[in-house]
């Protein structure tokens, strides 16, 4: 009973948060709706990060590359071919002429993200710790460099404009929901459980027969797929994209969300993504001035970032495992209480019963079985 309840809560918690944001967002002004959609899309990216980072315990600074690839692919192929040919004359022919629907672009972006991350993962997934962090960061830099300067595959250093804006509140919410369901389903696979164990002690995992590389690669690929998908949502939310938007700033912003929420749980990822997203949106409004009743509060320009940074630092110092403690929704209440206060009367019935050594009395200090204490 309990385990099933836990499972339901684990999925229902994050999903209901999506619904709350979507519903609350829809009730707001049209400009604020944009912010709410952005919160949903950003949370999708955070979920994608979580699938790899949260489950493998390896920090990747490269997931935004997959977002970038997804965003540019989806954006490019849905933008009008006519302007593509005038504003991007150097494009490869098939990129200049192919036109796909927005839905197709979501699928394509997810696929590309998965393929790209799979290939990168083949090379990188043997690394751990800081080396993995730096190597994935290198992937981000490389992706950025190529996308910015190779004008045969995209707009290069200029903006990709005229992408159809189709990520409505509903699409954003459904997209985020899909990512959450995928992440949830994945984290209950055998592969993921083994991966989660291996992050605690890779050597012991090897000894048990767990191929850390293989399971990491699976997580990396799924994460890359979700990231590409999120990239497509992102580009269809903004209607345009330039490489600077899917680079270091977004990387660190989403990582911050993940850590603040709690990198070890899906609930943490979603809560962190949505929570910081909302705070961010609020702060940016506050820089333009918000009215609290009759009092008009305006934050000095630039304070948004200061506050976000400080918030992140403070949360992590107080709660290094994030505000959720890296636990799933309601996990604390639904799981059996650990702890055995007093360690007292344990049920007996040990099969050993101190049989061979302790009972013969021949020793000066026989040590009876612990279980009988």
């Amino acid at each position, binding site marked *: 009973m309990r385990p099933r309840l836990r499972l339901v809560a684990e999925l229902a918690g994050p999903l209901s948060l999506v619904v709350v944001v979507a519903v609350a967002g829809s009730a707001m002004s049209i400009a604020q709706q944009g912010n709410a959609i952005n919160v949903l899309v950003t949370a999708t990216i955070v979920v994608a990060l979580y699938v790899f980072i949260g489950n493998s315990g390896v920090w990747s600074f490269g997931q935004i590359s997959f977002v970038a690839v997804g965003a540019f692919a989806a954006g490019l192929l849905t933008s009008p071919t006519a302007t593509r040919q005038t504003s991007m004359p150097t494009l490869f022919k098939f990129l200049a002429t192919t036109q796909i629907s927005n839905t197709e672009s979501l699928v394509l972006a997810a696929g590309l993200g998965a393929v790209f991350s799979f290939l990168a993962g083949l090379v990188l997934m043997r690394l751990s710790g800081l080396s993995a962090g730096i190597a994935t960061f290198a992937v981000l830099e490389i992706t950025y460099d190529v996308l910015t300067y190779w004008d045969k595959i995209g707009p290069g250093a200029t903006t990709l404009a005229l992408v159809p804006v189709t990520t409505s509140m509903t699409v954003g919410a459904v997209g985020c929901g899909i990512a959450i369901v995928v992440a949830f389903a994945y984290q209950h696979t*055998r592969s993921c*459980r*083994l991966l*989660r*164990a291996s992050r*605690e*002690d890779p*050597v*012991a*995992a*090897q*000894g*048990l*027969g*767990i*191929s850390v590389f293989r399971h990491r690669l699976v997580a990396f690929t799924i994460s890359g797929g979700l990231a590409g998908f999120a990239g497509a949502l992102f580009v269809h939310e903004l209607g345009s994209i330039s490489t600077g938007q899917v680079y270091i700033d977004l990387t660190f912003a989403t990582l911050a969300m993940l850590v603040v929420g709690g990198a070890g749980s899906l609930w943490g990822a979603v809560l962190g993504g949505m929570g910081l997203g909302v705070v961010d949106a609020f702060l940016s409004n506050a820089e333009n001035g918000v009215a609290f009743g009759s009092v008009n509060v305006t934050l000095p320009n630039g304070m948004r970032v200061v506050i976000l940074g400080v918030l992140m630092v403070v949360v992590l110092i107080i709660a290094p495992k994030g505000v959720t403690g890296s636990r799933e929704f309601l996990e604390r209440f639904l*799981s*059996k*209480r*650990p*702890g*055995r206060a007093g360690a007292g009367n*344990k*049920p007996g019935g*040990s*099969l*050993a*019963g*101190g*049989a*061979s*050594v*302790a009972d*013969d009395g*021949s*020793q000066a200090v*026989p*040590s*009876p*079985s*612990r*279980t*009988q204490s």
Partner: protein
Amino acid sequence: MPDQAAEGDAVNLAGSGDAVGGAGAPPLSGSTGGLVCSEVSVAFAGVRALDKVSLSVNRGEVVGLIGPNGAGKTTLLNVLSGFASTVTGSVHLDGQDITHFTPQRRARLGLERTFQHGRLFSGLTVRENVELGALAVRASSRSARSIADRLLANLGLEEMADLPVAQLSHGDQQHVSVARAVAATPKYLLLDEPAAGLSEGSMAELGVVIERAIRESGAGVVLIDHNVDFVLKLSDRVVVLDYGEVLAEGPSDEIRRNVDVVSAYLGEAGVEDLAASQAQ
């Protein structure tokens, strides 16, 4: 002494464990069976940790491995399980040459080990740790869970099943790491000082769990421990290692009687342990 070791080597090279001393448990498999390493040498920065050591263990048999600190016991276990880096010689598992297999691959062939120093998944709970032992090889989630529950009950750990292992005392952690290895229902089980730091009662429980694993899955066990009594009790055959060489080898009884041979190793503490059990 060197003669004896050499003889043991020669016999083991032939690949049949039961020839040694003759008193070991009868092997379950044919002459190609068993976990066998032959003429293994390992050196670290010029220092020989193992020098042409051969060892074999058959299904259903417990081979004790004793020897002074630094004798090379753990290194030998590393060789068997694939964790040693520089190896000459070969390792075979049921006739298959596994010398160059990774630890993962060996584990999937049914070779499980414990580590001298914990190496539990410290953030996970006791139950999860044990379940993973089963899950890592082949078991489904459900069967892993039932295996874990049974093992924990056997060890009297069910009370702690939902605690993170980091919160367990040292002795309890030792239990969990054995349970994790046993949960994989291994063909061969390599235990590195599982009884270190256990009170004698807990040690007895441990003995029962090991015996049960042998009974149920016919596992062959290599058991390292410094509690000679514990090792002799459980083992069919005992190998004494010193300075990377096999110093003596034979059935437990023989080693037990042959206190002289190993007094260099046993010292007062060992003799005391032995005396206690001989009084039985």
